[in-house]
Structures are given as C-alpha cells and as structure tokens.
C-alpha cells in the first residue's frame, strides 16, 4: 500500500539501470526484475530471490562502454529515517511511558524505531512472552494510572493471542491502545507475511473495541493516533486499534520532510443534566433508606473523594461493587458485606456506573429450572447514572438485563457527583440532618457488626491444612499494613473476599477491581502491569495470585524479573480451576450421578505444580510450597525482603479452595 507512494523512486532507479547497464552481482538480480517492470525491486533484493510470479527479463543486460568503465551504481540499502521514526514522534507526543509487546515482524520497523530513534525511553519497550500478557499488563497499568499503555502485536496471530485480554478490557471499560502490524500490499509480501496479513485486521475484535483505523499515510497516521487516544480515554473508555502497514513503517522518510502532529484535547466527560440531578437530589434527601451503589465509578482519585462527600452528606449506605476503588472499606457507611440486606431495605437506590443494575436489585437462582426474584422492595426508586447508556454494542452480551428504572442519566458518574452533592447540600434542612445523623449511627453499628462477624469468620479453620484463605490474607496484611501498599489482584484472586472485608482500603490505588470479562489469565499480567505503574511512586504492590490463572501465560513472571518490577505474589493455590470444578460438580449433582468424579478436567494435581520452582526458573524469588500455616509468615517475610530490593517474588501457598 504505502510503497506505491515511492513508485517514483523505483521508476528512477529503473531508468538509470536501463541507461547504464549495471553489471554487479546484486544488480544482476535486480536488473531483470526491474527490466521486467516489476512493481518494486525490494522483494528481489531482500532475499536475493525473485518473486515466483514476476516475469523474468532477459538475462544479458545491455552493455555500453560507459557502463563498463563507470563505477557500478549502488543499491540504496539504507536510509536515515523511515515512517516508523515519525510514528515514534507521535507516540512520544502522546506521553506513553511504556509500550508492551511480544516481538513481531509486521511491526519490526516501529520496534526498531522505538529502541533506537526513540532511545527506548518514553516509551520504554516492555518485553512480553505472550500478547495476552502484553494487553493485560496494559489493562492493569491503566487501572492505576487512569490512562492507556500502547501494545504492539501482529495483526493476525498476535491479535488472536491478545483477543481475550482485549475483551476483558472492553468489558471492564478500560482503555488499551493497540498497534497492529500488517502488510497490505500482496505483491510485496514475504512468505510469513501472508499469514500475518489481513484485509480487515481489526474485524475480529471490532465488536469489543471502541474504534479502529488503518492509516494510509503518515499524516493520516498522526491524526488517527491522536484520535485513537482521545476516543480511548473519553468515557465510556475502551480499547482502540491502529493498524500500521509494514510499508508505511518501513519506507524511507526524507529527513527534511516535516510532518505535523495534531494536538490532543481530551473531552470533558459529560455531566448529568441539571434538572435530572436536582430530581435525584430531591429523592435522596427525602428517602428514609437511600443506598448508593458504585461499580465503575471512580475514574480518577477524585471519584472516591466525591462519593465519600455525598455519602456523608446524606449519611447514606454505600455498596462498593468493586470494579474500581470507589469507597473506603472501613468507612462506617460502607455496607458492602451486607449488600443484600441493604438493598432489601432501600427506598431509593442510586447506581453509579453499574455494569449490572439488574443483578443489583434482583437475584437469579441457578438450579435445573432457573428462576429470578426481586431483591429490592416494591416501590423502591431505582436511579442510574452511567456512561454505559451512551455506548452499547450488540454482539457480545456484556450489557446485561434491562432494569426497571425510574430515572436514567446517560452521563459520567464521577463527573456528575459534584453537582449532585451541591444539590443535596442545598436541599438538606435541619430536620433532615437530624434524621441523617440517626441513620448514620445505625449504619455505623451495622458496619461494625459486619466487620466483627468477618473477623470471627476468619478465625475458623485458622490452623487448618490446607491453609485457610482467612489465615493467608491475615498473614499477608500483617506484614504490609504499615507500608504504602497496593493490592493489584482481581476479585477472583482476592483470597475469598477477605481483603475487602478486613483490610483498610482508603487510598485510590489500593484496589484495581477485576478482569471485566472474567477471562481467566488476566490476574498475573494485570498485577505486573499495575506494579509497573506503582513502581515510580515507591508503592508496595501485592497480589493474591491464583494457580490456574498463572498457568495461562506464566512467562509474565519473566517480564517482571527482566524489567525489575517489584511485586509480591502470594498464591492462593487450590490446585484446580476451582470455579469450573464447582460448575461441573453442580451438573453431577443435578444429574444424580458421578459426584465423586466432578474433579476430572479441573484439577491441577498429579503432578502438583511447583510454583516456587517455576518462578525461580523465570528469575523470580520463589518460596514454597507452604502447607503449614506456621510457615507462612516467615515465607512472606523473606519474599517481602526481595520485593523491597526491587525484585518480584512469589510465595506458593497451598490453600483451602475458597
């Protein structure tokens, strides 16, 4: 494609050849193709072979005395600048710290420009062993930094590897910036490039990406690159794709050619319409039991601050569904661990960027005949504020069931909170304030009782073998509680829910939510990506890493070691894909047969995987397997020492299943 832009250059070479009759060996290979009017001599020069379907020209060049005595005309084999250099200029203008990739020839020029022309700095290339790891790292990074990382991959085989991770980011509404290589011009493809090229590269992920483009020129690339960033970070955020032709990357760029880079202007997110916000405020102030439910609310650190302010203004119950760090875990108004009872007693429920409003106020029973029932009481007012209403795709069904809402605002939750707080404050009278105070006291007592119950629950099986998840989380927290820690695991991996029930989460970076699409294999790379973001702030990144998740692409541990990413991974090793084991078990029970065989196909035993050795083989400090709870504290302590030296470390802990 892009090579057509340089046909004039090729034609000039051809004319010179015809005039001079070059005799050199390389020229002898070039000459016939050129004489035959081949589209480009490059294919002939590159591998020393001619394209199979190119017509062969006469083997004897036209000779003249001038040609015999003139010095041979050299092939142009080098160039000072290529299109990919300009691409790096644009990438740098977008402010990326890192760029993640498993290397691929379809973006070889961009790769080389990053490390040489760009000095491998801003962005620094992060070497990944799998494209899924590269994308999930970018996903985890974005959860901490609130902005995307770019990922490079082959447009076919690389994208296929990356697809699940892209889907996770899509479902989670997190921006990831994908750059895919492709070789569009069929006449110029090397053998492998045929398998690495497609007509419509982004097609296979278009259903779960927000925007994609395949630029035709460098100015087009500049605009699309900036536009892609803007679209990715405008709520609802989501992955975006840029497809870069190999020729556009590799073709020479005249050193005096000046190309403009458009300015990036990120739109201000939409706030709720003022009359609607006033109505919500009126309902909240008048309510006896208002409940604020937050899921993907906190887009920036201000999100948690605003929600605390609103909740305290109303003395309202808050349920944090955990896709983001929305609300302090030990705040007296936090009723997350008694969510069902809280919703059942609510007369007003405001959902703030909920992925699933329906399941917040309804329950589905998964038995032989599925059934549903409401959880919220009849007559409760249901209100939604979400950018999810601004952008919905059809094919993948992550949009969930329709809810019977009383009011829906298609706007950004975090951006709407300040005006909602202002309205609530304006409408709150002295009488209502007294009611709020009583409510707040009641909620604080309930929250305290729930925490006491959680502590009591964690004490059961305290000395059990396998080690209880309560014990694992308590031992870990005991060693990190006085550090500037950040838990970079998913809800799958958060050790049975204990951290959010018992630890004190009160900073925006202490929790990064979940995988989004529930695709297992997100956990390990996302934790490495989040740890990469945390590194410059000196934070202690810890993850509760599940065994099955790590086995999808354990090479990400090598990436952590190679790039000196400090991360403490404490394994919740239940030696199985346990969630799926429970599903199969359910089927066996349902069919009244083979209950004792339900483990088949889900267990990771015989042999037991030695994760400490696996980690060590990849350059990571490894401890374990730890089977006795008395050994857990010392093992974590040794691993923590390694992390404080700037290295990743992993402690394999053989645990109860849940």
């Amino acid at each position, binding site marked *: 494609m892009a090579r057509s832009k340089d046909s004039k250059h090729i034609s000039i070479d051809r004319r010179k050849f015809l005039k001079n009759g070059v005799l050199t060996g390389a020229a002898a290979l070039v000459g016939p193709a050129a004489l035959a009017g081949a589209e480009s001599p490059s294919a002939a020069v590159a591998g020393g072979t001619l394209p199979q379907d190119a017509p062969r020209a006469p083997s004897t060049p036209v000779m003249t005395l001038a040609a015999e005595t003139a010095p041979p005309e050299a092939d142009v084999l080098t160039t000072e600048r290529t299109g990919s250099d300009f691409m790096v200029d644009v990438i740098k203008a977008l402010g990326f710290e890192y760029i993640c990739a498993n290397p691929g020839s379809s973006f070889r020029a961009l790769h080389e420009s990053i490390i040489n022309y760009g000095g491998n700095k801003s962005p620094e290339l992060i070497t990944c062993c799998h494209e899924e790891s590269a994308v999930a790292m970018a996903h985890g990074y974005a959860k901490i930094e609130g902005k995307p990382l770019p990922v490079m991959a082959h447009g076919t085989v690389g994208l296929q590897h990356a697809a699940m991770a892209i889907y996770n980011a899509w479902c989670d509404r997190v921006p990831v910036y994908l750059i895919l290589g492709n070789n569009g011009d069929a006449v110029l493809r090397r053998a492998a490039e045929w398998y690495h090229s497609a007509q419509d590269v982004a097609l296979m992920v278009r259903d779960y990406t927000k925007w994609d483009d395949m630029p035709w020129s460098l100015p087009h690339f500049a605009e699309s690159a900036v536009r892609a960033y803007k679209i990715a970070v405008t709520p609802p955020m989501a992955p975006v794709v840029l497809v870069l032709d190999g020729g556009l990357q590799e073709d020479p760029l005249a050193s005096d050619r000046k190309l403009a880079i458009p300015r990036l202007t990120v739109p201000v997110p939409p706030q709720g319409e003022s009359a609607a916000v006033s109505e919500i405020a009126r309902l909240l102030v008048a309510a006896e039991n208002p409940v604020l439910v937050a899921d993907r609310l906190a887009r920036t650190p201000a999100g948690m601050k605003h929600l605390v302010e609103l909740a305290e203004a109303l003395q309202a119950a808050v349920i944090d569904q955990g896709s983001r760090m929305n609300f302090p875990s030990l705040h007296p108004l936090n009723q997350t661990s008694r969510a*069902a009872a809280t919703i059942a007693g609510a007369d007003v429920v405001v959902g703030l960027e909920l992925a*699933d409003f329906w*399941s917040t106020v309804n329950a589905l029973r*998964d038995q032989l005949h599925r059934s549903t029932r409401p*959880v919220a009481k009849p007559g409760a007012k249901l209100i939604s504020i979400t950018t999810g209403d601004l952008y919905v795709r059809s094919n993948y069904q992550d949009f969930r069931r329709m809810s019977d809402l009383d009011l829906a605002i298609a706007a950004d939750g975090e951006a709407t909170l300040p005006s909602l707080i202002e309205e609530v404050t304006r409408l709150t009278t002295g009488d209502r304030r007294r009611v709020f105070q009583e409510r707040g006291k009641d909620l604080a007592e309930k929250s305290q009782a729930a925490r006491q119950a959680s502590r009591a629950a964690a004490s059961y099986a305290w000395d059990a073998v396998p080690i209880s998840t309560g014990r694992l989380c308590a031992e870990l927290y005991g060693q990190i509680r006085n550090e500037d820690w950040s838990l970079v695991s998913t809800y799958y991996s958060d050790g049975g829910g204990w951290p959010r029930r018992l630890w004190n989460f009160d900073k925006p970076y202490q929790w990064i939510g979940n995988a989004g699409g*529930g695709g*297992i294999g997100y956990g390990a790379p996302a934790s490495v990506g989040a740890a990469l973001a945390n590194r410059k702030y000196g934070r202690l990144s810890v993850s509760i890493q599940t065994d099955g998740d790590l086995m999808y692409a354990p090479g990400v541990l090598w990436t952590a070691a190679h790039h000196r990413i400090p991360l403490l991974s404490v394994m919740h090793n239940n030696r199985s894909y346990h969630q799926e084991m429970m*599903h199969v078990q*359910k089927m066996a029970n349902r069919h009244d047969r083979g209950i004792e065989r339900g483990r088949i196909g889900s267990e990771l035993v015989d042999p037991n995987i030695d994760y400490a050795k696996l980690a060590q083989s990849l350059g990571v400090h490894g401890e374990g397997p730890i089977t006795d709870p008395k050994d857990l504290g010392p093992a974590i302590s040794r691993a923590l020492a390694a992390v404080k030296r700037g290295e990743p470390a992993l402690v394999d802990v053989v645990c109860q299943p*849940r």
Partner: protein
Amino acid sequence: MKTRSAHIVVAGAVILAMLSSPAFPQTKPPTAQAPGTANAAPATPAGNAEKGKALFARNACYQCHGYEGQGGTAGPRLGPNPIPFRGFVAYVRVPRGEMPPYTVKVMSDQELADVYAFLQARPRPPAVESIPLLAR
C-alpha cells in the same frame, strides 16, 4: 475464554452475598450456629465422624464449604455446631438457594449422619481477641 463462568461467578457472588442475609429467610442457606448455642435435635442419628470426613471430601462438599466446613465465598460455615439434623438433611436434599441437591441416590441418610458427625466434631476456633493478626 470462560465468560459463562465469569457471568455465573459474578451472579453467584451477588446471590451468595444476598442469600447470607437474614432478610431472605425463604432462601437463606442455613449457617452453623455460633459456638455455645445448644443443638437440641432430639432425633439425631449416630454417625461416624471419620467416615463423614471422607464423605465430605469425596462428595465435593468441601468445594464450597471448605475442608473443615468453615465456609467461604461459595458456601456458608457448617461446623462446628451445625443446625439441627432435620433441617440439615432437608436443606441438603432440597436446597432453597444455589447449592446443588444431594438426593438419597447419591448420599444416604446414614451418610448424611456421618457427615453431620464430622461437622459436629470440627474444632472450635480460637477466640478472635487471641489472634493478633485479626486484631482491630
């Protein structure tokens, strides 16, 4: 990948959280009583705790309730001090929540009695105040 599982997990986690609430007595799975509560089931049959331990593992009860019956995100605590035997059997046969059913075909009444004995024999936990790691 495992998107169906993911949806089920999310739904299940919400449902389990809901079912553990005392506001839904009609579907709440029974949780073991607090230690010290009298367990006055007049007709609890004799069971063998050792056999019960093996049955608890073999029949996959541990997968949701933990090897010690201590509970977790997938299932409530069952022992020590389980609910009265009649209620225990009734729920296991026809669970009102998410728990899969165990009919007589897969676990006999005697086997349930053995499991019950195992749950009764679970050790009491140390007092929370005696565990520094669970301190306030």
